């Protein structure tokens, strides 16, 4: 014990400097660690942000493509419907033409009435 005390008494300045150096090193290490932690936090934050932004853009593209497909299907259905109507009206009109041709032969008076009614033309004998 006495030996230890004598050593401490003899080298107290060196020991004090060593303690001080240790404390300063520890603090410097802690400060450096904090900086590294801050940097890591920033990097992690950027990574999360980039990942989620990428997902968002991907989702946006997918939703838009889906909407476009839906639009194409609707337009196609509408065009089909209209085309069907056009075909049916052509047939109906052809039938009506035949009907009027028959009417000319079978009931000319009614044909005259129809012309007068549709065009407001005056029939002259």
């Amino acid at each position, binding site marked *: 014990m006495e030996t230890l005390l004598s050593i401490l008494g003899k080298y107290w300045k060196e020991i004090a400097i060593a303690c*001080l150096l240790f404390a300063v090193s520890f603090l410097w290490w802690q400060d450096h660690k904090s900086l590294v932690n*801050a940097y890591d*936090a920033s990097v992690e934050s950027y990574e999360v942000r980039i990942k*989620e*932004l990428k997902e*968002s853009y991907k989702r946006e593209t997918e939703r838009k493509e889906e909407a476009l497909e839906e639009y194409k299907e609707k337009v196609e259905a509408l065009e089909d419907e209209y085309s069907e109507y056009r075909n049916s009206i052509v047939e109906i*009109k052809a039938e009506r033409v035949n009907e009027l041709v028959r009417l000319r032969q079978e009931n000319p008076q009614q044909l005259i009435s129809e012309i007068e009614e549709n065009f407001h033309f005056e029939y002259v004998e």
Partner: protein
Amino acid sequence: MSMLSKLLFLICLVYPTNAHAGEGRFTLIPKGAPVPFEATCFDTEATAKLLTWKEFLKEEERKQCDFEKRNISLDYDLVIENIQITLDETKVRYQIEIDTRDKELEELRDIIKKNKKLNIPVVVATSVAVGFGIGFGTYHFASK
């Protein structure tokens, strides 16, 4: 008359419309011809077509208008839906920015808070004092 001719004649009678399958004809009749005025004469086919055209005109136009309207409506629906999608995803991205920045700030605050607990001048002064204390104490005990 052969059997085939009879059959053809019968078909023509049954389907008289085939006899009017032409496109229709018309002619211009000058004044002085056996009509009381200068005239345009349409044959039965042409007259029937004109009448039919007039009869169906309104319905056809209405149908075409309806078709165009629905087409334009679909176009605008797509544009609106795209804008809505962009808006939704922009909101999501905005929220992501806010959340991640909040989290980052929180972490940085924690780090600063931890650092604030350690006051370097105090630590240095304390270390020096402790060093001197230990030295003087040891020297004092050793002198005894």
